[in-house]
């Protein structure tokens, strides 16, 4: 049995992965098709499904809505998918206004808005609230005035309360936009209203012309038209997603518009885009629970787009599939399992555990790579384009290095490091994905695939290898100090691994940093500008050079080397995240305050490990430090 486990365990995970790759079947309404429809938002083409998921991440930090959050997990609360939520928001907002889709955590904000505490009777979990609660007449006013005050402050001076307030405020704005995307939010039967609009336009326009010319006119006709016009102006002023595709895609592929704008154009005499009526048919059918009609309307619109915009349809349906597949999440789960198996090996040297871990990491790496390539293909860009993708790529590079180390040493150390860094970086990536659309378009300054592919990729590999060296050192200290499992030979092997990886790290971080300088020289005319992110990268280079020189000069032995390598973790974390927290410079594309706490905790934990590294040899459980002293 144990000889088969190294095959069976990875196989079981593979089956799980492949099984979850299929899209769930639709029931009454063809939600999958609806979610795959292309629209433009945030400056890029994307499926409605992505808008739904990103909106929910902004509202409540998850990609689904729990309609009964006061229930425990085992009481099977009703969970609604992102696309179903979005369709309901767009078609029957009065229903979703009652859904607890807004997460509010800050106690002061909860009391400011008079929101109920956790109370099963009142169906409240003390965290999730409905639009009808956060945006009641009283609260709406409160939010407006308080947000305006918080908005005035500089980003780094905002208190946690201010941040919570602004986050809720922007979530509310987003929700308001989505309600007004396909129809005015107060529409009762939008398809029917749209049909009557055509009858209002000619007399209304005639009345308006007459009124301008100072002739007598039909007041009722004018008013009948002005009412819908007012609603449409509100719709387009909110800047909801651009859902109406170009009328002439061959000549003007970029002329997407909003429903409100298309309607205003129609009133001025332009033909009404078919998409407006198609979407109207969808929302009305959904409102009235007519599944067959809804599916027919979606199918009709989908087929029309297939003819006019085949490339966009293909791209958005793939993005929808990518969203569903969630490869990084699944790789993360697999890395955890692999980590446990690899650590288990150290306790009893059961080779099946090590080989199973190797197989699992291989599988996780495969899925990780699929995700990475899928993303690159969706964006048409090199792997690293923002902080989020840098986390994904650091994890990827670390797993490669860890597996290589394992090929040489076969002592599970490479596996532990690979799975640990793979897991941690994917968790970081997940948390970064809560803040913004991870496939966002690039600012003009950064819009060059050549430098993104060279400088950014190499410097990120430099980060990855510095982390690998640091984590190897952690293995040395933790195993050596707390357990007897670290023998002298393994200790020596670890020192050689750290040294080898630091060599790699020096190479990558140096070349990556200087390539950044050359990019800067090409783009701004200065090779080096002492910008914080440049300085961060320079510190990594200096630190790695320091480790190498200290080793060559025999200023440190194995233990000292390990302490320096762990300090490398601090240096790299600072360069990766810390400098962004300063909020200055060209590279400050990701201001973040919530992350500061985590960075501080990480730094403290590393300092503690270094301190342990300095403790006298007699306090260590293993004999490694004594051998090192000789």
């Amino acid at each position: 049995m144990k000889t088969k486990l190294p095959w069976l365990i990875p196989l079981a995970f593979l089956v799980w992965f492949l099984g979850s790759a299929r899209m769930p079947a639709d029931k009454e309404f063809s939600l999958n098709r609806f979610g795959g429809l292309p629209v433009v938002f945030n400056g890029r083409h994307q499926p409605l499904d992505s808008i739904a998921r990103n909106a929910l991440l902004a509202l409540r930090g998850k990609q689904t809505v729990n309609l009964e959050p006061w229930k425990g997990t085992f009481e099977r609360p009703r969970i609604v998918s992102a696309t179903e939520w979005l369709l309901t928001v767009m078609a029957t907002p009065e229903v979703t206004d009652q859904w607890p889709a807004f997460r509010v955590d800050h106690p002061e904000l909860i009391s400011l808005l008079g929101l109920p505490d956790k109370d099963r009777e009142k169906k409240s979990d003390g965290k999730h609230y409905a639009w009808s609660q956060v945006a009641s007449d009283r609260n709406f006013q409160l939010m407006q005035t308080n947000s305006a005050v918080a908005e005035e402050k500089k980003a780094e001076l905002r208190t946690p309360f201010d941040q919570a307030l602004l986050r809720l405020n922007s979530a509310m704005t987003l929700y308001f936009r989505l309600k007004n995307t396909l129809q005015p939010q107060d529409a009762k039967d939008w398809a029917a209203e749209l049909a009557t609009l055509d009858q209002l336009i000619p007399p209304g326009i005639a009345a308006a012309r007459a009124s301008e010319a100072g002739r007598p006119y039909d007041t009722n006709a004018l008013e009948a038209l002005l009412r819908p016009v007012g609603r449409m102006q509100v719709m387009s002023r909110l800047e909801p997603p651009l859902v109406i595709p170009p009328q002439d895609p061959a000549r003007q592929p970029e002329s997407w518009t909003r429903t409100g704008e298309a309607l205003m154009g129609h009133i001025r005499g332009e033909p009404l885009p078919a998409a407006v009526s198609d979407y109207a048919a969808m929302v009305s059918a959904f409102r009235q629970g007519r599944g067959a009609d809804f599916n027919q309307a979606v199918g009709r619109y989908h087929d029309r787009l297939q003819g006019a915009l085949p490339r966009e349809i293909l791209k958005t349906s793939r993005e929808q599939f990518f969203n569903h597949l969630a490869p990084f999440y699944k790789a993360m789960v697999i890395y955890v399992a692999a980590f446990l198996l690899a650590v288990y090996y150290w306790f009893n040297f059961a080779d099946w555990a090590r080989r199973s871990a190797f197989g699992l990491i291989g599988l996780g790496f495969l899925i990780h790579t699929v995700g990475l390539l899928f993303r690159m293909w969706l964006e048409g860009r090199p792997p690293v384009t923002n902080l989020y993708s840098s986390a994904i790529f650091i994890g990827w590079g670390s797993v490669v290095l860890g597996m290589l180390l394992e090929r040489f040493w076969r002592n599970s150390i490479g596996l532990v490091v690979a799975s640990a860094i793979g897991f941690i970086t994917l968790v970081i990536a997940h948390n970064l994905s809560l803040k913004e659309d991870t496939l966002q378009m690039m600012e003009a300054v950064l819009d060059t695939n050549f430098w993104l592919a060279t400088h950014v990729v190499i410097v990120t590999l430099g980060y990855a290898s510095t982390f690998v060296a640091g984590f190897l050192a952690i293995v040395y200290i933790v195993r050596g100090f707390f357990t007897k499992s670290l023998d002298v030979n393994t200790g020596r092997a670890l020192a050689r691994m750290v040294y080898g990886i630091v060599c790699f790290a020096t190479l990558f971080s140096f070349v990556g940093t200087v390539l950044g300088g050359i990019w800067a020289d090409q783009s701004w005319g200065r090779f080096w500008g002492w910008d914080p992110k440049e300085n961060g990268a320079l510190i990594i280079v200096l630190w790695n050079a320091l480790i190498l020189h200290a080793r060559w000069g025999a200023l440190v032995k194995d233990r000292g080397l390990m302490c320096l390598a762990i300090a490398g973790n601090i240096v790299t974390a600072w360069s990766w995240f810390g400098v962004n927290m300063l909020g200055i410079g060209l590279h400050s594309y990701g201001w973040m305050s919530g992350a500061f706490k985590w960075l501080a905790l990480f730094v403290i934990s590393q300092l503690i490990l270094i301190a342990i590294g300095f403790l006298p040899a007699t306090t260590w459980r293993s004999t490694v430090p004594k051998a090192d002293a000789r």
Partner: protein
Amino acid sequence: MLKPIIKLLTSLRLTVTLLALGVAVVFFGTLAQTSDGLYVAQSRYFRSWFSTWSPHTVPWIVLPLPGGYLLGTLLLVNLISAHLQRFRFAWKKSGIFLTHLGIILLLLGQLFTDMFARESRMSFAEGEGRNYTEDFQKTELAVLTDASDRTYDSVVTIPESLLSARAETTHPSLPFTIRVREYHENALVRARAPFVDTNRPPASTEGVGTRAVVEGRPPTREMDKRSMPALVAELIGSKGSLGTWLFSMVLDPQEVVVEGKLFRISLRDMRYYQPFSVRLLKTTHETYLGTTRAKNYQSRIRLEHPGGTGDREVDIYMNNPLRYSGLTFFQSQMGNELRDGSGRGTSVFQVVKNPSWIAPYVGCGLVAAGLVVQFMIHLVGFIRKKA
């Protein structure tokens, strides 16, 4: 006596110490940017021999630090002397030699860049031409000697260093001497209020300064703003003082008639004149669909020469600068004369002159090659031993 010094200078211990200090200086120099701004922090920590750092909320904590120049020099000395003293060439060490050669080139290149590179800007609206670039960090007092001639400008300029030293300036083409009375590196110039400023005399006896007062301010530290210098100068003609005038960047040029000739005097950004001019033809500012996020900034310009020969049109956009006549023009900012976007498009180029621009390219190549060679030697040896 000499031996221990040589031993110290060539030691790896010194290398490691210098690298550690380098990490500290770069770290604190970066932190300081949040309070001091990029420019000030850069000259305090990196372009200096010594510096100190204090957290800006707790000023009594003072951390002494070596400056960038000191560290760079010591690293160079350490590296070169170690090679002279200790290293013997061997193929096994060829990578290290290459790497260190590259580092020397990088350090020297950065020093030369610091000494000889010059950054300035060229800003204009569509249709306008410029035959000079402006240095936004420096100021000069410019005297247009024949303001009535509209076809050609003949200018006498006095650089900031002479102004701040309150020097006296004479020039053969000026029938008067300029004596600086007051100089402020940064100043607020405002109208003299009728009841508030009763016991404060006007800034000058002539020109617009008779209705204004000047208040000195500490130099600005914000990154996107510059200090606004102001000065009061006395003009002295052949028959004695002509009075004092106030000059500031926020004021229009002051007109002075001396011996029947019109002079126009102004304080302005320092200009570097070029033998050619650049005319801005068209600006393009694209954003991503339905957003204000910038997708592309692009300026179409024409290079113009006095004779009209060799004129050509060029597009300058992000990541695609123009290199011409030892200068490099980079697209820096773009805007519009009117806020609502109805006026002519405007464009600002960053203009850099850096004669040692090639050094980092070569240095980087050497270091990268050296590291690859050295690590390959290690790796091959290691794999052989394992196998």
